[in-house]
Each structure stands twice: as structure tokens, then as C-alpha cells.
């Protein structure tokens, strides 16, 4: 066997290249076989439905007639739709900014603590992220409840009039954002804390020797070093917040008078509850542009990091 190879190989180099190719091919086949379930899952249950949604949005209510862009055009002339667009943007952008701010501040505070206590605090502060949102939102729902409101009870102790948290549009909008910030800020805290830990101490020491104040250290050392993480975490969060469903569904269900509806809850109300699947699909498709933009930036960052390695 071995002799056979020895005798054959030096004579014919094309034959050898064949076997080498065969080896490479077998490797690729194994690799493809291992990745196949993933490919099948993603293409049938993610990619295909995504395109199917586009098709669905072009049908009429009975789903028997193709109507082209009529659903989209209808939405563009519908006041409630524009309210939902505005509320979705307000909800996502405000929430992400506050999550990032709180995350940034708290991560610095935790980072300040002696190493021994950090674990405990970090563990405590991440709890909102761990509790399933549906369940914590129910607790918030009751904290905001007009007659039993535990928050209003506290405010009354300080002589502040009770607030209709979920009853009037302005406060309802504030409340859904507050709950989203409460739920998402810990995630930012963890990400930023990890980023802070990755900044080498020598940089701060060098900055201190160069005479930098605390603010200057944050501005010239921390922020530039964390820039990537800050950006990517915000983009991620923007996508997730934009597509949020649970909080609004449980807290206000879009009310009062649709003032807190965002794309996902409105699409649900129209599509599943209202039994107008094409219209629901059309609404949810309006999430695509912002998702696309965020995805583009995330991808660019990943590719850049990938090529720099």
C-alpha cells in the first residue's frame, strides 16, 4: 500500500493533485454537513418568512387578491400610522439614550468599588435583565396602578399629587420608556463594565502623570477606548428596543387611544387580533429601514474588526 504510493506519486503529479482535491472536497463536505441544519433552519424559518412578509403585505384583507402597494399607501395616509411611527422612534431613541447613560454611569460606579465587592453589586444590578420581561412588566403595571399604585402612595407621603401613569398619553409614554430603561440599562452596565475592565491601567497612570483630571481621563482615555463597545451596544439595543413588544402590550396595550402603540404591538393588534394579516405585515415591514441601517453599521464594525485581527 505504502509502496504503491511511493512508486506512483513521483511519476504523476496530476494524479496527486486529484487526491489532494479529493481531500479538500471531503473536508468541505463534512463542513457543509455540519452547518446544514443551521442553514435549513435559518432559510425556512427566518429568511423565507421575511420575504413572505413582503408578499403578504401586498395582499388584500381576504388574502385572495394581489393589491401591490395599496396597503402601504393606505398606511401613509392614516394618522394613527404616523403616530405609531413617531411613538416608535421616540420610544426607541429615548430609551436607548437613557439606557446608555445609566449604564455608563453605573458601570463607572461599580468599577470604582474595591474588586471584592464588585461581583456582588454587579450581580444585584443585573437582576432586571434576568427576570422575564412579561413578568416584571406585570409588577410595573401594578406599581403604576391608579387605585393601588405603590409609587403614588410613596409620592403622597412626600405630598406630591398622584400621577395617572398609564391613564394619560404623556405619562403613559413616559411609563413604557421608563420600564424599558429599567429592563435594558443593566445590559449596558455589564457591557460597559467589561469594556472598562479591558482598558489597561497603565493608560490611566500615564494620563495621571501627564496631569489629566478625572474628567480628562474619561474624555481622553475611557471614551476613545470604549467607543466601539458603546456604539455597538447602542445599535444592538436600538434594534431590540425598536422591535419591542412585551412591555407595551402588557403595560398599556397601546392605550390610551393608541398613544403608546409601537410597530410590533400595532402590527399584532391589526394582524392577529384584527384578523387583517396583510395590514399587520405591512406595518411590521416599516421596521426594516431602521433595522437595515443599524445592521449595516454593526456589520461594518464587525468586518473592520475581523480584518484588523
Amino acid at each position, binding site marked *: 500500500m505504502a509502496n504503491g504510493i511511493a512508486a506512483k506519486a513521483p511519476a504523476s503529479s496530476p494524479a496527486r493533485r486529484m487526491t489532494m482535491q479529493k481531500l479538500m472536497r471531503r473536508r468541505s463536505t463534512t463542513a457543509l454537513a455540519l452547518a446544514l441544519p443551521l442553514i435549513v433552519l435559518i432559510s425556512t424559518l427566518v429568511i423565507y418568512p421575511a420575504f413572505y412578509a413582503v408578499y403578504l403585505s401586498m395582499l388584500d384583507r381576504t388574502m385572495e387578491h394581489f393589491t401591490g402597494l395599496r396597503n402601504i399607501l393606505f398606511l401613509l395616509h392614516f394618522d394613527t400610522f404616523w403616530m405609531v411611527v413617531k411613538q416608535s422612534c421616540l420610544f426607541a431613541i429615548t430609551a436607548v439614550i437613557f439606557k446608555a447613560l445609566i449604564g455608563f454611569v453605573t458601570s463607572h460606579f461599580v468599577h470604582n468599588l474595591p474588586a471584592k465587592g464588585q461581583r456582588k453589586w454587579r450581580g444585584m444590578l443585573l437582576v432586571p435583565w434576568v427576570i*422575564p420581561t412579561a413578568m416584571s412588566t406585570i409588577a410595573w403595571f401594578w*406599581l403604576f396602578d391608579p387605585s393601588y399604585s405603590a409609587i403614588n402612595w410613596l409620592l403622597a407621603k412626600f405630598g406630591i399629587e398622584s400621577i395617572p401613569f398609564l391613564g394619560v398619553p404623556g405619562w403613559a409614554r413616559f411609563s413604557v420608556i421608563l420600564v424599558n430603561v429599567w429592563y435594558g440599562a443593566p445590559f449596558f452596565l455589564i457591557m460597559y463594565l467589561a469594556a472598562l475592565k479591558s482598558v489597561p491601567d497603565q493608560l490611566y497612570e500615564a494620563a495621571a502623570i501627564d496631569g489629566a483630571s478625572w474628567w480628562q481621563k474619561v474624555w481622553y482615555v475611557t471614551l476613545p477606548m470604549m467607543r466601539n463597545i458603546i456604539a455597538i451596544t447602542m445599535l444592538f439595543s436600538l*434594534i431590540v428596543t425598536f422591535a419591542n413588544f412585551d412591555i407595551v402590550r402588557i403595560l398599556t396595550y397601546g392605550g390610551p387611544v393608541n398613544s403608546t402603540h409601537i410597530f410590533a404591538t400595532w402590527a399584532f393588534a391589526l394582524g392577529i387580533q384584527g384578523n387583517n394579516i396583510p395590514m399587520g405585515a405591512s406595518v411590521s415591514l416599516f421596521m426594516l429601514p431602521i433595522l437595515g441601517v443599524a445592521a449595516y453599521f454593526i456589520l461594518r464594525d464587525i468586518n473592520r474588526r475581523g480584518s484588523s485581527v
Partner: protein
Amino acid sequence: MSASAQAIGPRAAAKPSSLKRSRRWALWWSYVFLVLFAIFFLMPPVYMLIMGLKTSGEIAAMTNPWWVFHPTLENFKALLGSTQYLTFFRNSAVIAVAVVIITMLIAVPAAFSLGRMKFWGSTTLATGVFLTYLIPDSLLFIPLFKIMAWVHETTGIALLNHWWALIIIYPTLTVPFCTWIMIGYFQSIPKELDEAALIDGAGYIQMLTKIFLPVALPGIIAATIFAFTVSWSEFLYPMAFTVSTDQLVLPVGIVTTLIKGDVYNWGQIMAACLMGAAPPLIIYAFLMDYYIAGLTAGATKG
């Protein structure tokens, strides 16, 4: 010259103590603010516990909502004796465990293939996997709803309003991210390790099972935790695809069946939420480092 030396002298002597003092102040402020944030962050779960321990009578009496005057475990007992609640719990548990298994069976080999074997198009595919992670459930639930209805019409298999159908759908939420985490972990393993294994005579499958799985165990635990918590707390899909009381999972069950009209049995609802939140909280308490590793892996690796 000597004057400046004198001027420096006392200041240099005073410096260490002022440094120490400013550091102590910084620490003190950190604690003050962290306590405030902790109160904010822990308010809802603590409130759940307080209310869960109250009787309906105490709640209706509108006494101090932040204190339990007559603590009772009645609410918890009632829930544990309620077949309905136990059904929700069972549905959630079976789904979560099944989804974890399916996810790992799909994600780990795929990550090994994409991260380590490097075939034609593997980088593109890895990026594609990541992109699908960014497609939210709120974009997919309507087409999936229609597809499930279509499957029923053509094959007679009723997917809608059956809790087990969620086992097929949930992996779309977990697999992309878990694959992404595992690619990161696999890629961080030095390439010499597979070369050593290759020389030792291991094939690709042996390399995966005997070398990569044990070495990447922390990543696998992190991915498992992620898959479990995501399936445990998913709300939109079960909300859209299941209706009958016996087909609901915990989050939806609590929201739709316990909250009935105007008669809220708040003590029981809060107890239900608390027990529903327990599995992820327990996992988190014991495996916090893996949990956090999984969280941060998405952005820092890859």
C-alpha cells in the same frame, strides 16, 4: 531655589492624605448612587415578593403597599395546587429544555464548521447567521402565523394553538446567537491544538467531541443559559400562536388568564410572576459568570 524646595516640601507631605481622602469621597459617592440605582432596579422584584406574601384582604384594605403585615404563603400554595398554573409551568419547562437541546445540536456543529473548518463561503455564512440574529420576532410572527395556518391546510398538522409547535419556532431566536457565541469560542482556541490532534490521529468528529467540546465548555454553558432564558421568557410568539388555556406558556398564561377583567387577584398574580421568574434567577445566581460571559460574548468576540 531653596524657597521653591520649601514650598514643595509640605505639599508633598500633605499629598498622600489628600489623595486618600479624595479617593474615599469617590468611593462614598459611588456607594450612595449605587444604592439609589439598586433600589430602582430591585423595586419590581421586591414588590412582587411583598405582594405575593399578602392576602387579598390586606391588598384590598390599601394599607402600606411596601410592607406585609400578615405574611402568608397562601398565594404560592394556591398556585401550586392549580392545574392551570402547573400546566403553564410544564409547557414552559418542556419547551425550554427541548429548545436548548435542539439549539445546541444545531449551533455547536455549525459553529465548529463555520469557525474552524473554513470552507468556501464560510465567512459569508457566519456573517449571515449574525444578520439573522438581528431580524426580530416582531417582524416574523405574522408570516410565521400564516405559514403555520398553511401547513395545517395542506398537511393537516395543526401547529397553531399547540404549545409544542413553539419548539419548532423558538430555535430561530436562539440558534443564530448561540452559533455566533460558539464561533467566537472555537476561534479563540489555538490552531495548534487541532494540529496536535490531527497528528495524534483524530478525525474531525473526534476533534470536535474530544478536544473542542471540552475546551469550549464555558462557551457551551453560556450558550445553553442564553437559549434557556430566551425560550423561557419569549412572549410574542406564544401570544400570537396559542390561545387555549391548556396550551399557554407561563408569561402568556399569567398575563391572559390570571388577569381577568377587573377582578385582579394581585397576590396570586405576583406570586405567579415570582415563581415564573425563579428558574432564570436561580440559574443566574449559580452560574452568574457564564451568564455574563454569554451576554458580553456577542459584542466583544468576533
